[in-house]
């Protein structure tokens, strides 16, 4: 460093003089003021952007900025307009049908295209509470988002960095987006929609007509909306609906600086994650990803139980006969469990039944359905759990008991309100249901409130399957029950518990060093993935310190099976 010159020293003295004169510049802010501004700011952040504002700003912004904003809101705006149009016109006619038709879709896929080669695809699933979005610039992938609102996890892929980022525990964002989905849901329940969901826009004109194109008739609704503040720009919309299905096919939004077209598709399944949206497998994950929080993991388990594809499952224990086979149905939040018995009731028929081959596939099992009779064991209709207890027919003297089970001669129906939270019912046969077995409900088996449990989380455990977290749950007072859990969870596989260990503690040995009297371990050794991307077990190894030998349970799931609603109605 050069030796300071006299001028340098003079400069320093001058600076010293200024700063000495000014003193400490830092100001103690009034906490009330800081909080008030913070609140005002975050409250403003939570408000959805208003399209009319975006359009107003296009005057001084580069072409398309307003439209780009509209892209971001396209899904919500489109949804919102259902209600707006409906309520401002005819509550009982076409739009009600459109709303209902949309509501019945598992997924709504919207392709949005506009000027400057900016394209966007969006997927909305009110059922799974998922919003996904993929943007292009020309042929180039720009960025991709997968927002799992129910789990509170949002992942974003930045193409220019080939990197994935994750945000979690943002309750503000979650609430905001849950509100958006709620608006979506509300709009589709047309009776509850009272006011325009689009701030500062009013309906100026509305008409509809039939259009015949290549022999097909379409219903076309045309709307003009006008901003009530700012430049009061007009937005014209044209929505083409298939009258047979009631589903929109296209939706054009025309503003001063261009036109956006939304094209609708209604797939049965949607993207499971970022990779399903085209993110390359080479994408790196941000090394500074926030660690999983306890709340996040508990919520992940809960969501894993309640969110799954509809299925018809076959569940059996290896080395068992077909008579041990169970058939399980799920549709939304309804389940049905059936046990089986051989169709032929002769002793010979029973004996010649071989164990179910280990490598049997779905088609093979379905073939063997003809040999079996399925009997309802329990039904949960979404509100009430119905058990069906079978009683054997009166035994003929000298006959083996196996024959006596040939048919049900009496059923006792017990209706009971389901335990647990309304959105997470505590289903009493968790080992029969792959999604429940894979996402244990710690509080469920003991019927004690989940709030009483003490939880802890080890994000980098030194045991268990790789890439898992370890959740530990302990009930502080109820010794002697299954009150001590260790669960190894893979957050990348929709929080599937790849291994779960339940310990029973001897209440009399409470003061002893090791009061554990029994350890039951379940290990998911083979996994499948549903069409909507949810991981589930197909083979589960169960070890018990009480029993010799391991037990293996297998699951084969049919996601294409027809599942009539009548299956979940209680049998009278």
């Amino acid at each position, binding site marked *: 460093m050069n030796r300071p010159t006299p001028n340098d020293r003079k400069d320093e003295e001058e600076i010293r003089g200024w700063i000495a004169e000014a003193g400490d*510049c830092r100001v103690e*802010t009034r906490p009330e003021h800081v909080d008030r501004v913070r609140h005002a700011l975050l409250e403003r952040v939570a408000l959805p952007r208003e399209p009319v504002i975006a359009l107003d700003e296009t005057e001084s912004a580069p072409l398309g900025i307003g439209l780009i904003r509209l892209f971001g809101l396209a899904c919500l705006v489109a949804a919102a307009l259902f209600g707006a149009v409906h309520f401002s016109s005819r509550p009982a006619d076409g739009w009600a049908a459109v709303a209902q038709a949309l509501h019945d879709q598992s997924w709504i896929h919207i392709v949005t295209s506009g000027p400057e080669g900016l394209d966007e695809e969006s997927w909305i699933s009110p059922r799974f509470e998922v919003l996904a979005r993929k943007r292009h610039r020309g042929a180039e992938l720009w960025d991709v988002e997968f927002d799992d609102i129910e789990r509170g996890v949002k992942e974003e892929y930045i193409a220019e960095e080939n990197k994935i980022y994750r945000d979690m525990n943002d309750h*503000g964002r979650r609430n905001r987006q849950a509100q958006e989905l709620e608006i979506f849901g509300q709009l589709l329940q047309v009776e509850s929609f009272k006011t325009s969901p689009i701030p500062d826009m009013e309906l100026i004109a509305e008409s509809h007509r039939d259009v015949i194109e290549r022999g097909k008739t379409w219903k076309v609704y045309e709307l003009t909306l006008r901003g009530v503040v700012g430049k009061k720009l007009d937005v014209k919309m044209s929505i083409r609906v298939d009258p047979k299905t009631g589903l929109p096919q296209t939706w054009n939004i025309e503003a001063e600086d261009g036109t956006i077209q939304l094209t609708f598709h209604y797939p049965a399944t949607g993207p499971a994650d970022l990779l399903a949206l085209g993110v390359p497998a080479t994408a790196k994950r941000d090394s500074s990803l926030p660690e999983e929080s306890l709340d996040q993991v508990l919520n992940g388990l809960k969501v894993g139980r309640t969110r799954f594809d509809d299925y018809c499952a076959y569940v059996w224990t290896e080395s068992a006969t077909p008579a041990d086979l169970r058939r399980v149905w799920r549709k939304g939040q309804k389940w049905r469990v059936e046990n089986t018995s051989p169709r032929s009731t002769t002793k010979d028929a029973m004996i010649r039944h071989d164990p179910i081959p280990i490598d049997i596939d779905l088609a093979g099992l379905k073939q063997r359905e003809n040999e079996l009779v399925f009997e309802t064991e329990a039904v949960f209709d979404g509100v009430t759990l119905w058990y069906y207890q079978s009683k054997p027919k009166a035994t003929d003297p000298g006959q083996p008991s196996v024959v006596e089970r040939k048919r049900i001669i009496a059923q006792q129906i017990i209706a009971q309100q389901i335990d647990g939270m309304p959105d997470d019912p505590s289903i009493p046969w968790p080992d029969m249901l792959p999604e429940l077995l894979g996402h244990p409900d710690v509080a469920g088996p003991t019927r004690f409130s989940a709030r009483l449990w003490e939880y802890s989380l080890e994000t980098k455990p030194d045991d268990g399957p790789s890439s898992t977290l370890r959740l530990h749950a302990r009930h502080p007072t109820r010794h002697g029950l299954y009150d001590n859990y260790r669960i190894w969870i893979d957050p990348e596989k929709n929080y599937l518990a790849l291994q779960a260990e339940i310990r029973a503690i001897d209440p009399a040995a409470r003061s002893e060093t090791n009061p554990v009297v029994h350890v039951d371990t379940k290990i998911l050794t083979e996994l499948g993935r549903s069409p909507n991307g949810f991981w589930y077990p197909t083979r589960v190894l169960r070890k018990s310190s009480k029993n010799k030998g391991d037990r293996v349970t297998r699951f084969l799931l049919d996601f294409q099976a027809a599942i009539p609603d009548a299956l979940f109605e209680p049998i009278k």
Partner: protein
Amino acid sequence: MNDERRLLRALAKRDRTAWATIYDRHVRDVFGFVYHLVGGDQSLAEDLHQEVWLAALEGIDRYDRQAGRFRDWLMGIARHRVSRHFRGVSSTGTGSIFDWGVVLGTSGLPPPEQLESIERADVIRAAMLRLNPDHRDVLLKKYVEDASVLEIARGCGRSPKAIESLLTRAREQLRELLRPYFSHTNQGIRYEPADPKRPQG
């Protein structure tokens, strides 16, 4: 992408957590900056300070990170708000933020003529808050707390040479910020209150 860029993306998407983070990070500097620029008028400072944040939210889409740091942009908004106040422009509403342009290339303080009623010390304090935090801290340690270079170096785990260098850059930045307000003469620093007839710029 570093944390700053990630945060900026989140800000642009009106991410609540991101805004809470950025607010908590800068609130004291922004408020202090405004507070000194309005001559220590607590009530006025609080009003303008709130406007700054709401304007930042409305204008986030126009923030260009290529043009400079977010903190500088935020201070630019604050400067703009204070200027508007001194020019007598209504401060209600968020107004257009497009005229701010690239505020980073301009003086970090409102035009001198708008500060004529403000104490010289307040101008310096505002300029100090406008500094890069590292620069501000080292100047405060050196000239307010009267710590030696060696003590500062020990306190922050850096070499004395690094601290000397930091001090030099800090002084240069401060001088640059104050240049429109004080002319540098052989007789020292002279405070030049604005000539009301001089065109504003």
